[in-house]
């Protein structure tokens, strides 16, 4: 290990503007090499824009984006061959046969790893002579992952890869991702909205919101930041803007439920000072924590 941390993705003050809207807002993101990193964010958080810029398909409005140490705006075909990309559409030429696509990729990528390909494709009932158009969604997902891993990428970007897959295909996909040797030397970026999967696969959780980095840590460390408090404050309770760390408040059966960020016992004091006689707190699940965190700033019509 050198003293310089090696980042697979590094952006500095990266911005992308579409008309009046900032899709990326001075984004500073550094993803270290190795392991599986999950990126979550509400729709429109800027994930797709980020990857289009990183792959060099789109120029930034301002700032800098580097992928595998290279400026994303001047990637060579060789640089691109070090990056695998699987998106939710699993788009491939539908008229080609599976064997033809595989042969084409094998020809294109010098580091082609037939063993990795066989290993992953073996999870699926895909025959070489089948046309891509005849494969089911799950089979196409598996085929795509097999192609991407066989390419021997240093960085594998998966954008909602299991969207629309049935439970069996989903499990096969996760297994080939986590237990195939092909991913041993590969950094995986996993974009998903499915917390159940993120909990299973992610070493690192990255939360993007409105084009900015909002959080990065192990998933369990993020969950630990959020707590759920229930109190019986008389009347309507304290004015919401005075509640420290507030993510979400619900009034249920005369009790106030608060989901708050980064609060300790001091929050109990706050509630008691507001008149609560009973205060209880409990931890929340990752799903609930991320949900509350993202819901806080989710667009809503102006209150009447």
């Amino acid at each position, binding site marked *: 290990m050198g003293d310089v941390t090696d980042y697979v993705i590094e952006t500095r003050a990266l911005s992308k503007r579409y008309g009046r809207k900032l899709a990326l807002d001075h984004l500073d993101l550094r993803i270290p090499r190795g392991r599986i990193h999950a990126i979550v964010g509400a729709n429109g958080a800027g994930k797709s824009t980020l990857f289009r810029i990183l792959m060099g398909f789109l120029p930034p409005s301002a700032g800098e984006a580097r992928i595998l140490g290279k400026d994303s705006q001047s990637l060579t075909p060789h640089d691109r061959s070090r990056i695998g990309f699987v998106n939710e559409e699993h788009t491939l030429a539908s008229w080609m046969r599976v064997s033809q696509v595989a042969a084409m990729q094998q020809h294109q990528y010098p580091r082609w790893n037939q063993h990795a390909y066989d290993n992953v494709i073996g999870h699926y009932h895909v025959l070489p002579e089948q046309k891509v158009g005849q494969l089911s969604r799950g089979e196409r997902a598996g085929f795509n992952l097999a192609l991407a891993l066989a390419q021997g990428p240093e960085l594998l970007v998966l954008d909602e890869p299991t969207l629309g897959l049935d439970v069996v295909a989903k499990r096969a996909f*996760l297994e080939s991702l*986590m237990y195939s040797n092909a991913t041993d030397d590969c950094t995986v970026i996993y974009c998903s909205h499915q917390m159940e999967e993120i909990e299973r696969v992610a070493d690192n959780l990255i939360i993007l919101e409105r084009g900015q980095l909002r959080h990065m840590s192990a998933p369990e460390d993020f969950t630990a930041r959020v707590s759920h408090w229930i109190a019986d404050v008389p009347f309507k309770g304290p004015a919401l803007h005075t509640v420290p760390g507030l993510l979400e408040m619900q009034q249920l059966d005369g009790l106030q439920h608060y989901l708050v960020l980064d609060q300790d016992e001091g929050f109990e004091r706050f509630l008691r000072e507001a008149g609560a006689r009973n205060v209880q707190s409990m*931890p929340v*699940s*990752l799903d609930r924590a991320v949900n509350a965190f993202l819901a806080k700033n989710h667009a809503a019509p102006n209150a009447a």
Partner: protein
Amino acid sequence: MARTRPLMLQIATGDPRPIIKQITDAVRVKIATGELESGDQLPSVRGLAQQLTINPNTVAKAYAELTTEGWLESRQSMGLYVAAPRQRLSDAERDRRLDMAIDHFIHDVVPLGFSPAEVQARVAHGLQQLAPRKRA
């Protein structure tokens, strides 16, 4: 050579306890109740990860925590084993934790309105269920 003891455990996503903690809690209980005995070999990191469909690093972290706490020990390139039983906490710390647990328990139970005798009987029964079981 010792064979790997199967680890009969399940994890749930969507639980407030992170998966690492679900694993460490379950292994500690299995050791405390004798379902796992000292010298038993644990599943490999990869094996348990596949059994639970989770990231192998998560299992590695859970195992590392259990090893640091003295529940498990690694034997050179042979894997992980349940360590010989020993007192893992100081007497004062054990006392403190017991007090804390009892305090919690009483707060939870008093509002339920059972008589103290009833509660004690149920606790005794519960503890009996956990008593080390003989293996077949």
